[in-house]
């Protein structure tokens, strides 16, 4: 089966909002339409661009570029600070529209989602997917705004549907089937394929694979035993032929937050306050999913671009902000000087219920900690984010809510 192309009717529809945050800002502020716009996370010239509008991209502005450098390329560039609640609203609007077509909707990130029509109702199954794609585009214009555009990709699996959605940006609709698969792959570079970046490209190059077409023609054994040296090789072999191998959900294993320090050479105690703030946000994230953690990892990047990290696996699970910070603080004592960015990750996450059944020797203390933390979370949920927090983080208001890239778990 897997050696053949998947010749079934395409049933997967991928939707990708074009330059999502920039487009949402252009929708919200009509005077920005047609102008080059860059979305940044801070109101400073030294910050990196998170999203650029198509007008800015045409002038050579790319993601990750500093706003100051981008303005040299494009002097009329308008820098806008990101506004996560606005993007979350558009995300929920897109999800609402997609849910009208199938119960099998998976949002892949804040600006893209997949509808699987394989198990849809008989009425919906009769409809042409391209027609549904155009209808969703129209609904996005009618129900969110006329500046909103999206790309639609249709194929037999998630990977090819996403590839199709990236072919003609902005505002395209493309279908990849076994009939046009080779033609489509001819027009792409290896790194245009989702999941293939620098390191994997080098591995593929080392066995003489330089184009997606050569990748498609490689045999399964070579991919599995020589290139990927794992089952991933077999997955890529099937994925490229249109067979579904990505229909899976990943359990929550880690949660964290990072922050680029706003000043050079901040004193250690002030960096610790910011770390404390990140611990509070991470703790709230974990508890919102009824989870607790077993490990803490602290990471720092220094101005000489060096990375440093320290981690600790605890014998008992923990969940409160103070428990997370106590461990992070201890780990951070050995951090290097000249820190530019700090990050905290809690790992070894497990459902809270797993440990509630056996409280052990410190049962009373744990129960008290759980009750206090629960009460604080409840007050914050009722009266607003960070209504109650540690006095240590009173002066860390500069750490704003972050645009949730990647996972949509906390939307």
């Amino acid at each position: 089966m897997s050696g053949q192309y998947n010749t079934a009717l395409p049933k997967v529809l991928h939707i990708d909002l074009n330059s999502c945050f920039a487009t949402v800002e252009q929708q919200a502020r009509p005077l920005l339409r047609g102008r080059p716009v860059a979305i940044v996370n801070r109101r400073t010239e030294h910050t990196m661009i998170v999203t650029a509008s198509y007008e800015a991209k045409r002038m050579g502005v790319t993601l990750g570029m500093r706003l100051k450098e981008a303005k040299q390329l494009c002097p009329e560039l308008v820098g806008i600070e990101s506004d996560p609640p606005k993007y979350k609203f558009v995300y929920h609007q897109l999800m609402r529209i997609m849910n009208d077509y199938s119960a099998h909707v998976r949002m892949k990130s804040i600006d893209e989602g997949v509808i699987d029509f394989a198990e849809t109702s008989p009425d919906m199954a009769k409809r042409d997917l391209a027609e549904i794609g155009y209808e969703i585009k129209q609904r996005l214009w009618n129900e969110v705004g006329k500046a909103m555009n999206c790309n639609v990709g249709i194929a037999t699996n998630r990977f090819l549907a996403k590839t199709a959605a990236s072919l003609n940006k902005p505002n395209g609709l493309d279908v990849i089937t076994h009939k046009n698969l080779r033609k489509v792959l001819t027009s792409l570079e290896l790194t245009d394929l989702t999941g293939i970046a620098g390191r994997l490209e080098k591995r593929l190059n080392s066995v003489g694979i330089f184009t997606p077409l050569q990748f498609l023609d490689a045999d399964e054994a070579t991919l599995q035993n020589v290139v990927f040296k794992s089952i991933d090789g077999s997955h890529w072999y099937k994925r490229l032929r249109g067979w579904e191998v990505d229909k899976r959900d990943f359990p929550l294993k880690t949660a964290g937050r990072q922050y680029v320090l706003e000043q050079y050479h901040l004193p250690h105690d002030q960096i610790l306050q910011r770390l404390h703030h990140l611990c509070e946000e991470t703790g709230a994230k974990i508890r919102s999913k009824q989870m607790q953690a077993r490990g803490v990892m602290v990471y720092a990047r220094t101005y000489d671009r060096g990375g440093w990290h320290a981690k600790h696996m605890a014998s008992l699970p923990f969940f409160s902000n103070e428990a997370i910070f106590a461990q992070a603080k201890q780990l951070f004592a050995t951090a290097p000087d000249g820190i530019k960015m700090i990050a905290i990750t809690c790992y070894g996450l497990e459902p809270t219920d797993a440990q509630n059944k056996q409280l052990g020797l410190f049962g009373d203390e744990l129960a008290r900690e759980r009750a206090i933390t629960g009460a604080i979370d409840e007050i914050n949920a009722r009266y607003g984010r960070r209504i109650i927090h540690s006095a240590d983080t009173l002066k860390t208001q500069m750490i704003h809510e972050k645009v949730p890239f990647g996972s949509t778990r906390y939307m």
Partner: protein
Amino acid sequence: MNDEVFLNERVEVVATFGAGLNPCNPIKFRRASGRIVEISEIGLRHPTMQGTRMVHMFDVTDGGADYRLEFDAERLTWRLLMEADRV
């Protein structure tokens, strides 16, 4: 950065409340200075929570500048939060 001016100004708003997906539509508002701004387009309306209090943000324009109006659904008050891009 952009030439946004952040404000927190109580304004008087004339709005229609009808049916459909966007039932509330501000038409015009009077600023503290007495200047009346006629809204030519509502760019985006999004609700957001401030604790348990629901507020609705309206990003609007009069064709000469973009504005952000906040409607507090509990207190039934309107505030002008931002003005930008006066041309």
